[in-house]
């Protein structure tokens, strides 16, 4: 105990928060391994790393979400063991999650005081005081918002700041922000940074988790990099560059590259364009996005979560409608009013979540045949033909167990994903849209899916692969478009490309 304190006495100020030797595992999976982390008073501390590197797990431990871990946590030198998020708040630790927990239909003031509205002596809500206090609190962030406007009417950037003021109201000294800039426009980012600097000047400490390295490097005093559940470094921002941070994130230089960490792109502009998307916007997440899909090519779209890939895939399959821009199929303008219309034109889509397109309680063959029933017979069902077709797919895709009549839910995840693909394989689609095609799959199933997708490409299908995992994109894509906040950030069509290039572009 005494030894600990003398350590800090020798160097710099005493940390506000300190994790030492923290490990956390979920079942058999090690999510964090021997992590040390310190947060100084009055600093903005950037936290970066790829998906699954351990930054979110670390913050959830600090915020009292994960209560079961090895190692110790100290606040102002005093060892604490948080038992809940409320417990964390009592220890002045507050977190603003990426998915805001606001109530859009309530007023700004009601949102700020959600759950502990000031009351009058007779027990009713003291609206006057609540509105006055909310206005004061928001003004302390340098903002001018009418506390009686409804939350939903505010732009996302302000909603986020109101949520931040709620955390401040609860007295938080340590504020954790998870991907705060991902939904913000550049002026909104500047506004947020001003607020953060103001809070730092008041002596509060901020943890800033983000994929956007430019943002992290701009606002942070120090940066900690995570990789594979371990802390790689904590360093002063002044001694870091974007390239050096990426190098730490992906571990370049430490060992040879693995599969999916680099690729040789083979985009061929001579191949005919099948689907041409020009300047589409959906009014929210997509802004003036353009892409061309060519026959016999896999086009990868890489971007962080929430960059607009999900919306792009849904719009191209007719699930949501586009506000602006044009989509052309074989040169002819198309506008799909339903997924059925998109399917009829030869567009196929496998969403990122298998449950979204599979009927777990129905037999395998009904899952496969649902997309081709009209091609088997306009009016009648032909279960024998359905089963025969399904058997063919089961053989081709090596789906296990090889039975057509068992409920789909009894198959493993990888095999379910193959069934989801099989849906679209009886009659080759013109365009196949795959969202996160290999996420969460074991190695064997992953390789099977990769093989299937490549063979479809070789048979002339124009394939669009959307992913937040650089490995998936680099393994599959012939050309890559990087999407950032709904617009094209960069395009790669030929030549050597590495994971670092994608991370730097996004």
């Amino acid at each position, binding site marked *: 105990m005494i030894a600990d304190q003398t350590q800090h006495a020798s160097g710099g100020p005493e940390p506000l928060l300190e994790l030492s030797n923290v490990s956390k595992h979920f079942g058999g999976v090690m999510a964090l391994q021997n992590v040390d982390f310190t947060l100084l008073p009055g600093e903005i501390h950037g936290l970066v790393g790829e998906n699954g590197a351990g930054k979110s797990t670390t913050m959830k431990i600090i915020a009292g979400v994960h209560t079961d871990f090895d190692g110790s946590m100290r606040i102002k030198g005093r060892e604490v063991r948080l038992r809940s998020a409320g417990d964390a708040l009592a220890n002045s630790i507050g977190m603003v999650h990426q998915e805001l927990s606001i109530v859009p239909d309530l007023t700004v003031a009601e949102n700020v005081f959600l759950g502990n509205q000031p009351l009058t002596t007779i027990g009713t809500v003291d609206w006057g005081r609540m509105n006055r206090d909310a206005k004061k609190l928001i003004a302390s962030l340098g903002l001018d918002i009418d506390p009686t406007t409804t939350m939903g009417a505010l732009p996302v950037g302000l909603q986020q700041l109101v949520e931040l003021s709620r955390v401040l109201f609860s007295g938080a000294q340590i504020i954790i922000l998870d991907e705060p800039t991902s939904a913000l426009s550049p002026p909104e980012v500047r506004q947020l940074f001003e607020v953060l600097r103001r809070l730092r000047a008041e002596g509060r400490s901020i943890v800033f988790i983000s994929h956007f390295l430019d943002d992290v490097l701009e606002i942070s005093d120090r940066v900690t990099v995570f990789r594979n559940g371990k802390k790689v470094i904590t360093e002063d921002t002044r001694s870091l560059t974007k390239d050096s941070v990426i190098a730490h994130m992906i571990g370049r230089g430490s060992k040879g590259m693995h599969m999916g960490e680099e690729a040789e792109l083979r985009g061929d502009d001579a191949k005919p364009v099948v689907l041409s998307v020009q300047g589409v916007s959906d009014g929210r997440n997509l802004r003036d996005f353009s892409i061309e899909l060519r026959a016999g090519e896999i086009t990868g779209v890489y971007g962080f979560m929430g960059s607009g890939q999900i919306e792009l895939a849904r719009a191209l399959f007719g699930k949501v409608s586009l506000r602006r821009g044009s989509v052309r199929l074989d040169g002819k303008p198309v506008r799909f009013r339903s997924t059925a219309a998109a399917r009829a034109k030869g567009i*196929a889509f496998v969403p990122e979540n298998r449950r*979204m397109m599979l009927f777990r309680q129905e037999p395998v063959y009904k899952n496969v045949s649902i*997309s081709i029933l009209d091609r088997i017979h306009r009016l009648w069902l032909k279960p024998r033909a359905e089963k025969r077709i399904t058997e063919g797919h089961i053989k081709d895709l090596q789906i296990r167990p090889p039975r057509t009549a068992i409920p789909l839910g009894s198959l493993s995840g990888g095999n379910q994903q193959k069934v989801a693909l099989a849906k679209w394989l009886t009659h080759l689609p013109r365009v196949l849209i795959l969202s996160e095609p290999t996420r969460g799959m074991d190695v064997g199933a992953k390789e099977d899916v990769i093989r299937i997708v490549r063979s479809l490409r070789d048979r002339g299908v124009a394939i669009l692969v959307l992913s937040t995992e650089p490995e998936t994109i680099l393994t599959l894509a012939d050309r890559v478009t990087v999407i950032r906040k709904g617009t094209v950030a960069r395009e790669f069509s030929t030549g050597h490309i590495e994971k670092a290039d994608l991370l730097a572009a996004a």
Partner: protein
Amino acid sequence: MTTADTAAPRSFSLKRFLADQLRNIAPVFTLVALVVFFSFASNSFLTLDNMLNIIRQLSITGIIAVGLTYVILTAEIDLSVAAVANAVGITVAYFTIQPDYVNIANIPLPGWIAIILALASAFAFGLVTAGGMTIIGIPSFIMTLAMMQIANGVSALLIRGQIAYQYPDLITTLGSGTAFTIPLGIDAAGKAMFIPIGWPIIVCIVFLLVGHLVLTYTRYGRYIYMVGGNREAAEYSGVNVKFIIGSVMVICAMCSGIAGMLGVAYFGSAQQNQFDTFLLDAIAAVVVGGTSLFGGRGGIGNTIIGLLVLGVVNNGLDHIQIDSFLKILIRGLILLAALIINVYAQVLKEKQSDLD
């Protein structure tokens, strides 16, 4: 090959089978138990005459229940069935010449035109419901509640508190005519005995049969089950979910309308609020039969059993010595029991597939 496949997980399969089939077994079991109970409790219950009576009383409800089965299979609900039946029944009477003492400003037209207009009104009711749900996005519960009121309003405007007695000949025949008789020999007094089979029963059986064939053997029927089973997955498989939902609402309104036309002829009069009990009866028949309120499970077979359970309860309670006010409560309790089984079967099924 199949023996080896099925033999291995036998004990497990039995459990799964029961979890799967609870919704089908429970109603049949209920039906048998009720028939046995009433047979012992009353001498007059288990007679050929009475059995036929039960079926006759079910025929109008049965036609409505066919359409409602489609709706409930897609996990929607239609609360306007009885009101639409009433409005369409009144519409067909409105366009038929009435006796002098029926004091409404009706517009007599040839019978076939009156029937077409009545069918068109049913179609229009369905179309409005479908549009409200699929284009505007109003939940079926609220949309059909509004349609119930609208259809009642149409009835009120057309009939103006009067009672109409005349319908086109075709409707009179189908609603109250005898299709054929089954001779049963000669009784002690030397009179020929026969069972008359009314047209409503025939029409009801045709509706049930066609309803079943469409659900089981057509692409459209499969889409209905898939949309009910997982709407999002159906949409991501390229099924036109809005068309399926909209069309079942139109089908349901058409079934209700036809039931309404036959109903007024069956009752012999067309007046306001005549079909009020049919809403609860039709919903009860579908749900008691075991069609899942969450969609995707069940079918016309279930609805037939549900109809019979309902018919036996309604009829059987008249045959035993019981406070007639208590009967209403008993019907409610039976419906509650069926709902419990319905929801429990769903929970059990989901648990089972999570274990897989």
